[in-house]
């Protein structure tokens, strides 16, 4: 029995080299050990891995010797037996042994070939990759592309697409804006939180940013803020703006003008996206920008220059409105500086000093009527409304407790406000009295004096004359036009109360309750209704020291005075003035 051993090596250029050895034996050992007949130089092979023997019955037996099953034709077992004329492939470690029948029946060929190379070949590319990071990280270029696309899509394409595909919501007249709930991608473009009042617009950027590429226009604001008046005529305001002298500012303005950015838009002053508490980002000095030297730019203005409330010439004396000519329907109201000591013609006569006295007849009358203990105070006639303005003084409510228009024996009050009706009511009252007197009997209650004859009653004409005469019911407060030749067509001249003396300022009385009314309104020394009791600027300056930090007060302290303490940019019109 012999085995023909062929050890096959592959040439680098292709082809095989086979070294043949003849083993004359029935049994050969295969393994790593050098005493084996077939030496396989592989650490994965046992020292004696397998024994191949030829049996007397003419079969080949493969027996595992190293404790590791043999792999014959991809089957694993400790022992295989095949016929001598069969072929088989035995895989041991990285070697493959092909067993074939030999040239004659007592010979078996074994071809041994190493299938897996000893060690990995020298691969320069792999070696380079060992030392650089590109093997274990995603490539820089790929990462860059990926991140760039994500940012461009989320931050640019999506919002722009949303902008052009969403219709503009119709303007609403609601005072609060209903919030949209669907996320709007242009929120990613928001440069800051919105003010509290606009918070509902957070998902609706197009409410203000209507046109792409254009600054927020006044039309967008006015779609909701319909009735807000302008500060002044827009063309005049543009002329009134001071021209910056710096190169940077001038260049910036020219650039803005060239790009179509108008100044004096709503958005020029009302800067949004500054947080919940801010919708008006104006410093206290803003008004001064124009008004400090308005005359230089608007030569025809009647407004005085204003620098600072506290400085002696920094703010003009107040211009008060007062009634110049009273009328029933349209009284003539004029504005004039308090420095000229104007006088008001309200058509009434009133003595404040008399009514405020603590000890005179008025005071005693008031005490007797239970109205006030030690003389009337201001609040008896001047009642404040919750909004801060004043209820107009009303004759019936405020005066008639003392100034009764009771007439005649029955004491029925004459109607106030209509001369003809009053005269008629007086006559009627006298007629009633006449009837009373005529109808009287001899029986009478004790203590009640009736004139025993009608002759004691005054005549109607005399009564009417007495009514309107000095000392009568009307002349205390009113001016009476003397009757014509007919004799009895008395007329009470019209009287008009001034609704507001300083309509261009927002004066709030509530914080001023720390002082008495008479500390500013010198009513206690006023005897004439034509006195204007509105205090001048000197009175205010006693406490309000201006925007400058004097007395160590911060500029926003209530006793400081920024322009906005009293004035607002958007004027409220009180309906009386034309200019």
């Amino acid at each position, binding site marked *: 029995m012999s085995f023909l051993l062929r050890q096959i090596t592959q040439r680098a250029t292709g082809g095989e080299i086979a070294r043949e050895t003849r083993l004359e034996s029935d049994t050969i050992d295969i393994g790593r050990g050098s005493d084996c007949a077939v030496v396989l130089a592989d*650490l994965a092979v046992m020292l004696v891995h397998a024994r191949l023997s030829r049996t007397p019955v003419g079969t080949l037996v493969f027996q595992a010797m190293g404790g590791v099953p043999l792999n014959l034709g991809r089957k694993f077992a400790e022992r295989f037996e095949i016929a001598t004329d069969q072929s088989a492939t035995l895989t041991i470690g990285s070697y493959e042994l092909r067993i074939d029948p030999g040239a004659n029946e007592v010979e078996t060929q074994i071809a041994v070939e190493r299938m897996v190379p000893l060690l990995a070949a020298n691969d320069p590319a792999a*070696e380079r990759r060992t030392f*650089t990071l590109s093997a*274990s990280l995603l490539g*820089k270029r790929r990462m*860059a592309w990926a991140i760039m696309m994500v*940012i461009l899509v989320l931050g640019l394409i999506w919002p722009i697409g949303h902008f052009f595909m969403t219709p503009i919501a119709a303007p609403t007249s609601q005072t609060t804006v209903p919030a949209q709930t669907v996320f709007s991608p242009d929120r*990613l473009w928001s440069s800051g939180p919105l003010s509290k009042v606009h918070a509902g617009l957070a998902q609706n950027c197009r409410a203000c940013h209507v046109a792409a590429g254009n600054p927020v226009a006044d039309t967008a604001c006015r779609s909701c803020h319909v009735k807000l008046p302008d500060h002044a005529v827009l063309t005049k305001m543009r002329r009134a703006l001071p021209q910056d002298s710096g190169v940077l500012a001038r260049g910036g303005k020219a650039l803005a003008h060239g790009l179509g950015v108008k100044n004096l838009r709503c958005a020029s002053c009302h800067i949004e996206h500054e947080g919940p508490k801010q919708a008006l980002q104006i*410093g206290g000095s803003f008004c001064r920008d124009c008004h400090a030297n308005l005359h230089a730019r608007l030569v025809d203005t009647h407004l005085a220059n204003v620098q600072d409330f506290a400085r002696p010439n920094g703010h003009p004396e107040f211009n008060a409105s007062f009634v110049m000519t009273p009328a029933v329907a349209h009284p003539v109201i004029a504005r004039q500086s308090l420095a000229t000591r104007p006088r008001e013609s309200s058509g009434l006569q009133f003595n404040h000093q008399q009514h405020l006295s603590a000890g005179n007849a008025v005071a005693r009358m008031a005490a007797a009527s239970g109205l006030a203990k030690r003389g009337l105070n201001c609040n008896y006639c001047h009642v404040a409304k919750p909004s801060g303005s004043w209820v107009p003084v009303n004759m019936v409510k405020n005066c008639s407790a003392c100034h009764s228009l009771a007439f005649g024996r029955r004491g029925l009050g004459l109607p106030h406000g209509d001369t003809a009706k009053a005269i008629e009511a007086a006559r009627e009252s006298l007629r009633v009295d006449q009837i009373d007197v005529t109808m009287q009997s001899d029986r009478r209650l004790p203590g009640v004096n009736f004139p025993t004859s009608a002759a004691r009653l005054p005549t109607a004409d005399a009564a009417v004359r007495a009514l309107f005469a000095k000392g009568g019911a009307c002349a205390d407060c009113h001016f009476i036009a003397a009757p014509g030749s007919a004799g009895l067509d008395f007329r009470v001249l019209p009287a008009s109360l001034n609704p507001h003396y300083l309509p261009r300022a927002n004066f709030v009385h509530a914080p001023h309750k720390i002082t008495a009314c008479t500390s500013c309104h010198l009513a206690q020394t006023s005897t004439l209704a034509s006195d204007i009791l509105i205090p001048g600027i000197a009175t205010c300056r006693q406490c309000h020291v201006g925007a400058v930090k004097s007395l160590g007060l911060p500029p926003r302290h209530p006793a400081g005075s920024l322009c906005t303490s009293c004035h607002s940019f958007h004027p409220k019109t009180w309906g009386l003035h034309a200019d």
Partner: protein
Amino acid sequence: MTKRFQSGTQLHESFLVYARYRWLKLALLLVVLVIMGYALIDQKPRPNGGSAYGYALGTLGAGLIVWLAALGVRKRWITHGRWSLMAWTSAHVYLGLALVVIATLHSGFQLGWNVHSLAYVLLLMVVASGLYGIYAYVTVPRALSLNRGETTQPQMLEALRLLDRQLYDAGLGLDGAHPAIVRDAIQNCDIGGSLWARMSGHYADCSCTHALRILQSEPAPIGLAPVIALLERKRLALAQARRQVVLKTRLEIWLYLHVPMTVALLAALTAHIVSVFFYW
């Protein structure tokens, strides 16, 4: 320009020191001017990117970002003469640091969850990774030279291959479990591999160390002496190659943040500028 001695040899001049710190001085001057402008120029209602000064700083910042990113293009051109790559790199570093100040003042310190602050944050990430890059470029090359001694990287790997072959031959005569251990030590020792291994130099369960530990603790190490000696040499060679990987990683890793973030910054910058003029 590199310094030359009369003999003609060149001394290495770091990009940080280039031209006696010329670009550091220019960058400092720029920062001082920008801060002074911010302090002195009144911006209404408060400092913000939309004021005149804000627009000026924004334009300057955007121009700087684009020029800084252009270093990636410049470094691939081979040119001669002035405006060398060394000068560009020096300017890149210092003007990039100045850009942080410019961008911050441009924002008026107003940050929020929007695309504008995204651009700012990306810029900070780019500069931060660049700062690490400077640190790496200044400290790592010397360590690399010390580590490699006189060898090259292919030589390191070749030495390991030779050791593997010798180990293989030495292991053929072993019995028991030892051949498998030696085979493991040959086949399963990584250099490089995962990012963590590359950064830390820590290779858990290195088969070579494992094999050494087992073989050295054998009671009667007859016949094991050559294997153990080879394993020791392999351990040292592995350590050198792995340290080389660690150092090379430090030189390269920051660019994997720096470059993609720069591209992302350019994208975010585009979104920022377009959106600002879209919703003027």
